[in-house]
């Protein structure tokens, strides 16, 4: 039961249409995605009684496709975490590896899928928050190309980096869910029609993703970025190379590639994400929604009181560090350099993908941590995002698929990265493994 490992913040069924491609399916929704009339907490005490007056675009599309939403899943507060331990509603336990974290920040979404409590789920991925929990829980997760899926109704953390995406037991099911949520939205000006869109779709921009899940990797050319393998735990790399050998047996080939810029990905990612967070989370002042700071002091004092009570430690850390990085005298040193790193990472990926169909690496450099292990040391937790953050910085699509288990039985995920709007390529590659 999902309640045994604390995967849901709110259990309340939202019924979709009678008919549609997802009729009869349950799709759990991460609790930072707005659901009309059903509270949406972002895993934060700040929003513990916030009830959105409208649906996110992806929720409208789920309902239109006939899905039933069984509840809202637990998550790191505002998406800020790699373990789903920073939630104000308590940590989630990994159903695939008891005693361990499920990964984060979409840990509740991956957990309910892994345990079979929901058929599929939606997560959001700012620096790995779909792929990490998918890898740790032994399920499939897709982070779409930036702009493929509408963010309307997603409570913003770092808008230039994040995308909503599917989590499912198999690549084919994840692709079916992606088909439902993808496509331009007039309410999110950063969405665009994929260049390979099939114009017969209802919105004139749908792509058939599920048919790419045919497991055919004959002739597939895989680039393996050495920087993303060398730093990983041996227990993880053993499983990774076994999976690559399996793909070779089925007609794929691989070559190593160099992405020198990714050595700076985690640092630059955190500077950009924290900076955007410090701006986005300025809206939480306890006046229009959220925890009130009272009415006794002046404006600044009561806002500061609201945010003291409403935000947890990790959110405070990121808001403060983001404020610091953007402040006079430090902007050029941190934020401007991080944007240079982002442009460099984009160039490196573009070049590597000119010479390969997809890139492959371990999704996470480590197996799932034990519950409580990383809470006191935020920097160590940030470094676990080494392989996932570069993809968000480059705006590219990526999929995490189960590749096997360590000797102790801990799930290991393999990540394929594709060119912009190359979702079919990563779905095809991933479907050979799951």
């Amino acid at each position, binding site marked *: 039961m999902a309640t045994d490992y604390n995967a849901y913040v709110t259990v309340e069924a939202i019924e979709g249409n009678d008919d549609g491609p997802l009729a009869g399916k349950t799709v759990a929704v991460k609790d930072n995605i707005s659901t009309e009339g059903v509270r949406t907490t972002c895993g934060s005490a700040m929003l513990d009684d916030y009830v959105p007056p409208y649906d996110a675009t992806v929720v409208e599309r789920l309902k239109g496709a006939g899905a039933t939403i069984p509840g809202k899943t637990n998550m790191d507060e505002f998406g800020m975490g790699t373990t789903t331990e920073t939630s104000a509603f308590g940590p989630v336990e990994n159903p695939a590896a008891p005693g361990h974290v499920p990964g984060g920040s979409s840990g509740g979404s991956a957990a309910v899928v892994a345990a079979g409590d929901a058929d599929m789920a939606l997560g959001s991925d700012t620096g790995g928050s779909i792929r990490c929990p998918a890898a740790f829980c032994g399920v499939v997760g897709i982070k779409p190309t930036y702009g493929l899926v509408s963010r309307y109704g997603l409570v913003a953390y770092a808008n230039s980096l994040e995308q909503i995406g599917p989590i499912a037991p198999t690549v084919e099911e994840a692709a079916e869910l992606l088909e439902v949520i993808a496509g331009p939205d007039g309410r999110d000006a950063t969405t665009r029609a994929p260049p390979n869109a099939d114009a017969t779709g209802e919105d004139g921009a749908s792509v058939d993703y599920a048919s790419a899940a045919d497991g055919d990797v004959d002739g597939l050319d895989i680039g393996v970025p050495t920087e993303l393998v060398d730093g990983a735990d041996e227990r993880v790399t053993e499983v990774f190379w076994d999976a690559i050998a399996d793909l070779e047996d089925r007609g794929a080939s691989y070559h190593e590639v160099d992405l020198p810029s990714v050595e700076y990905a*985690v640092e630059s990612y955190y500077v950009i994400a924290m900076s955007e967070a410090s701006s986005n989370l300025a809206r939480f002042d306890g*006046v*229009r929604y959220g925890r009130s700071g009272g009415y006794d002091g002046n404006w600044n004092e009561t806002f*500061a009181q609201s945010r003291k009570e409403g935000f947890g430690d990790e959110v405070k850390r990121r808001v403060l560090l983001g404020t610091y990085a953007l402040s006079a*005298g430090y902007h*050029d*040193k941190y934020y401007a350099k991080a944007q240079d790193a982002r442009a460099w990472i984009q160039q490196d990926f573009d070049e590597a993908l000119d010479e390969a169909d997809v890139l492959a690496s371990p999704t996470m450099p480590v197996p799932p941590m034990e519950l409580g292990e990383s809470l006191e040391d935020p*920097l160590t937790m*940030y470094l676990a995002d080494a392989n996932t953050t570069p993809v968000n910085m480059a705006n590219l699509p990526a999929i995490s698929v189960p590749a096997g288990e360590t000797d102790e039985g801990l799930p290991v995920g393999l990540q394929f990265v594709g060119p912009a709007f190359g979702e079919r390529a990563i779905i095809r590659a991933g479907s050979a493994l799951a």
Partner: protein
Amino acid sequence: MSDDAGTNADTDADVDAEAGVDAVDPEEVRHVASLARVELADDDVDRFTEQFADILTSFEALDEVPEIEREEELANVMRPDERHEGLSQEEALANAPETEDGYFKGPRVS
């Protein structure tokens, strides 16, 4: 960090880089927290001071990143203005901790 650093940004940043991030002290953490409108407990300040030193030290690596010529293909996304239904006043106020006469109620401004 200081409020007037903006007038001499480069020099200040250089000085800080040379000094390393030992320069993070509790007063700076309090100052940033006040800029961000986050009240901190005393033990939060101590813990954050220590953690920020570690994290900002790791960010020093960004000094090695070369200047990159960007080849962004950015395009404005425009559309004609269209009227459509928005939230009712009641819906917009529904999550407010306190309202008065159909308005949000906030603290005193000064």
